[in-house]
Structure formats: structure tokens, C-alpha cells
């Protein structure tokens, strides 16, 4: 007894249902799938860099410096005669590594601290004061100061970028914990005699993972940009590391001579950050469109 319009629609839906699941998924979550595909490409390029890169990314050839693209140097060379293509490909490794590590590090630390703050009122007071203090210092200053404090390496860059993110994660986790601990299923667990550590592990943390993962993906994206800022301000990854930030920072003084030095890493960085952001957006919409507000 369906009206013809509904019948037609039904038929169309049925046809779609018979398509491969991945296609159906892609139609439903275009943002997520586009982001994931782009990100996968970048990850692939990064992983395959040793095979794809025509040159050693750190090999200097001062006689070939600032060369325009040629058959040997497809994207030209930088101010020390290093192959821009190779450096860009290897740069994907550094940027992705830095981004992922920052996201993981700040998410894990933030999860730990935020959970404690959410469950212990005394600890909460102390922790939140410290977090407020950290948040009151502009992140980039905190990071630059940290970079001068510790010897420049990829690990220290990760820590320096993660540090200003941690208070934000802590606040998110704490507010989620405060919401979750009021949920009836937590009350139910207490009524069942579940002890606090188990409540945290089985009931609280799994339920805040979703927004945390979304938040982590945005941290990942911004960490890659932040890495470039640090290099720009002269406090980034060590100069011999072919990170996109370094390439752009080194290349910026010669922008007008060899635009490619800043263009190619810029494009790659932009695309990768875009990919991660799209994945984050997609995940947020997929998992829960309403957690956006808390982020």
C-alpha cells in the first residue's frame, strides 16, 4: 500500500544495499572516507619513502643548491643541495610521527590526569589550578620555552607540542568523567559492588574514549601545524631532520628564489592536516554529532 514515491525510494535503497558495503559507507560518510583515503595515501608515501625517494634526504650537494626541478631532482633542490622530493617524502614520516605521538601522548596523559581530577575532589582542586595556569600561558610560548629547555630532537618536539595540549585534554576528560560518573550505569555498577578501579576501567574510560579519540585527531592535525610554527620560530626539530616544518622554515628566506622549497612541503602539510581534520570531523559525525560542542 506504499505510495509510488516511497516504493521507488525503497527500490533505490534496496539497490544501494546490494552495493559493496564500503561504497555504502562512503556514501553515508563522505567526509570520513575522503579524509581516510587522503590520510592513507600520505601514510603510504611516508612508509614507502625509502623506496620512493630518489635521493638520500640528508645528502647535501652544495654544487646543486637551489636548482629548479629537473630529471634528477624532480622538485628541485634546497639551499644545501638536498633533494626536495626526497625530503618531502621523508618529511611525511616526521610530521605524521610527530602528530600521532603528540596526539597519543597528550591524550594518554590527559586521560590519566583528567580521570583522577574527575573522581577526586582534592586532587581536582590542585590539578585544575595547575591546568588553568598552563592554559594561561600561550601554547606556543610554552612550547618554545620547553624547546630551549631540552635538547632538540623529535621526542622533545613531541613533548613541547603536547604540553600545551594537555590542559585542554584534561579539561575535556574531566568534564566527561563528571558527566559519566552521574550516569545511572555507574550508579548501577556501584550498587553491584564494583570497586572504583574497575568502575574507571570498565565503565568510565571506555565511555569517554569516543570524544577523546575525536579530540586526539584534532590534536594530531594541529600538532603538525605547530611543528611548523616551532621550526619557523627557530625552536623546532633538529635541522638535519627533514621535517616539513624545517623545510619551510629553511626555505622561507629563499621563497623568492626557489618557491618549491616552501610550496611542496606546504602542500603536503596542508593536505595531511586536511586529511586528519576530515577524519576527525568524520569520526565526530559518525560517533556522535553532539560531542562537537565539548571540543
Amino acid at each position: 500500500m506504499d505510495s509510488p514515491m516511497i516504493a521507488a525510494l525503497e527500490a533505490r535503497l534496496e539497490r544501494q544495499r546490494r552495493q559493496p558495503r564500503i561504497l555504502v559507507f562512503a556514501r553515508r560518510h563522505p567526509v570520513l572516507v575522503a579524509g581516510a583515503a587522503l590520510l592513507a595515501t600520505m601514510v603510504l608515501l611516508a612508509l614507502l619513502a625509502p623506496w620512493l625517494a630518489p635521493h638520500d634526504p640528508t645528502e647535501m650537494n652544495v654544487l646543486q643548491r637551489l636548482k629548479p626541478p629537473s630529471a634528477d631532482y624532480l622538485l628541485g633542490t634546497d639551499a644545501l643541495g638536498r633533494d626536495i622530493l626526497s625530503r618531502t617524502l621523508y618529511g611525511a614520516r616526521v610530521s605524521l610521527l610527530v602528530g600521532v605521538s603528540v596526539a597519543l601522548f597528550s591524550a594518554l596523559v590527559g586521560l590519566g590526569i583528567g580521570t583522577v581530577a574527575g573522581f577526586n575532589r582534592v586532587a581536582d582542586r590542585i590539578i585544575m589550578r595547575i591546568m588553568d595556569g598552563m592554559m594561561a600561558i600561550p601554547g606556543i610560548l610554552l612550547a618554545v620555552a620547553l624547546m630551549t629547555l631540552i635538547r632538540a630532537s623529535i621526542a622533545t618536539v613531541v613533548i613541547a607540542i603536547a604540553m600545551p595540549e594537555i590542559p585542554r585534554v584534561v579539561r575535556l576528560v574531566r568534564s566527561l568523567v563528571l558527566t559519566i560518573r552521574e550516569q545511572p550505569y555507574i550508579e548501577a555498577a556501584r550498587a553491584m559492588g564494583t570497586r572504583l578501579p574497575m568502575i574507571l576501567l570498565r565503565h568510565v574510560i571506555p565511555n569517554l574514549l569516543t570524544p577523546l579519540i575525536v579530540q586526539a585527531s584534532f590534536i594530531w592535525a594541529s600538532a603538525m601545524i605547530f611543528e611548523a610554527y616551532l621550526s619557523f620560530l627557530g625552536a623546532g626539530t633538529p635541522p638535519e631532520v627533514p621535517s616539513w616544518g624545517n623545510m619551510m622554515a629553511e626555505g622561507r628566506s629563499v621563497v623568492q628564489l626557489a618557491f618549491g622549497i616552501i610550496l611542496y612541503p606546504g602542500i603536503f602539510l596542508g593536505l595531511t592536516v586536511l586529511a586528519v581534520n576530515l577524519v576527525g570531523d568524520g569520526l565526530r559525525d559518525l560517533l556522535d554529532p553532539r560531542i562537537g560542542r565539548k571540543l
Partner: protein
Amino acid sequence: MNYLLRRLLAVIPVLAVVAVIVFLLLRLAPGDPAVIIAGDTASAEDIEHIRQTLGLNRPVVEQFVGWIGQILRGDLGTSVFTGMPVAEMIRQRVEPTLWISALTMAFAVVFAVPMGIIAAWKAGTWVDRAVSGLAVAAFSLPVFVIGYGLVYGFSTQLDWFPVQGFKSLSDGFVPFIRHLALPVISGGLIYMALLARMTRSTMLEVLAQDYIRTARAKGLSSQRLLLRHALKNAAVPIVTTIGLGIAMLLSGVIVTESVFAIPGIGRLTVDSILRRDYPVIQGIVLVTATAYVLINLITDLLYGLFDPRIRY
């Protein structure tokens, strides 16, 4: 009043934490101003002499106590390098930074909020996708790349705007705005993206509320629905974002100040960090942290304007 006082008192522990963090961070960092003052050809002895005259040989705790005492007397100290009072250095630099921040914020708010509203109203349509796409794209490029691009296009090629520098409003409005246009746009894009996304998601949430349905059932026009019923409800999260975004804004301002050679607070801080001018860094961070805390206090107070349920 009660609330205001309590909030003002709450600023103190935050600043105390900031003071401790900054002080420790700096004193733990390798490198000190003495070696820089002594220069390339100095011997270890020379450096030691200078360190002594600067008081850097005293125990860290003693230095910290001394500094706190100074702060409490309202003295931010003097720069190790220039010998200028820190307060004076900040005063010199505060104008450009304030202008950039204020105009960046204004620029971002003026564009982002309508964009977010339209995107939310037209959720799922191409308008929404375009706005969301723009926002994500603006998020994906470092400020300095945008800055260089704008300089190349609008200064070097088109010659509409100067490449660098800052002109005070007292030098005339036109030079003032010409010098600030590019820094504000390049720094404001990210902030705008953030705000547009936030506005969109907040508006989406508000538009799904029961009272919006009520308003529609009253026969209101879309315009009135959005601007009177929805926006006022969305205002609190939007204002929160504006407040919390200050931190992000400042990060952007630091980079734009470097790109456009604008003598603002941000650049001063980075320079001071890179050459370990302790009193200056400490002073600035303390001042910016205070500003940050106060701005967030103001945004908190603003909530009351938008949401009658909040009573202090």
C-alpha cells in the same frame, strides 16, 4: 558581587602557578644571558664576571623569592640586555598586539558567526559544505604560509599593502589599517575557521531544541527564528570559544608578528626566550596570563547577558 570577588580571587592561584612554571622553566633551560652579553671572544672568566654582576650566581630559590618580592611591589624588573624596565618594554609593544588581537577577533567574529549560522541553517546543503570545507582548509595551513601568500599577492604583486611594519592609529587611519590588514587576515583565518565550526555545531544543536520547534509552531520567519531565538541561545558557547580561543589567537599573533615584522608582545617574547632575557619573559608571561584570565572572567560575566539562567 560575591561571584565577581570570588572569581577575582581565583586569579591569584592561577598566576602563582604561572609564575612558578615560568620561573622554573627558564632557570632549568641551558644557556644564560651572560654568555650572550660576553660575546664571541669572551673567556670563561669574563662570562663568570658578567654572571655575577647580573646576580645569576645566586641560588635559584633566592632568585625566585627576590623576583616574587619584586612583583609584589609592582615591579616587573629590568631587561638583562637593554637595561630597560620590563614594564616599559611591554608598554611599548602592547599597542600593536592589542590592535592585531582585537581586529583579528573582530574580523573572525564578523565573518565566522554569520558563516556558522548559515551553514547550520542550511545544514547538509552545498552552502554548509562550502563553509565547512573552507573552515577545515583554513585550519590546515600554517599562518606563515598564508602570510607569505598574502604578501606575495597583495604586497609584492598588487602593491596594495605594505610588506611589514606597524603604524599607530595616531599616524592616521589609512596607514594604520593598511599595515594591519594582511597580518589580521592571515592570523584571523584559523580563528575564523574555529569560530565558524563552533558556531555551526552550536547552532545545529540549538536548532534541534524543543523551543525552536515551539518558535516554528508560532509561525515565526526563519530570520527571526535564527537571530532572536537560536542565536541568543548559542551565544554562550560561542562566547566561550571566543574566550578560550584567545590562547590560539595569541599563538597566531606571535607568528604573524614575526612574518610582518610587527613590534608586538609576541615577537618580544620569542626573542626574549631565544636570548634568555629572564625578567622580560617572566614579566610578559605574567602579564599575558593575567590578561587571559581576565578575558575569560569577562566572557564568564558576559554569559549573564545572554543566559538569564546564570546568576552570580
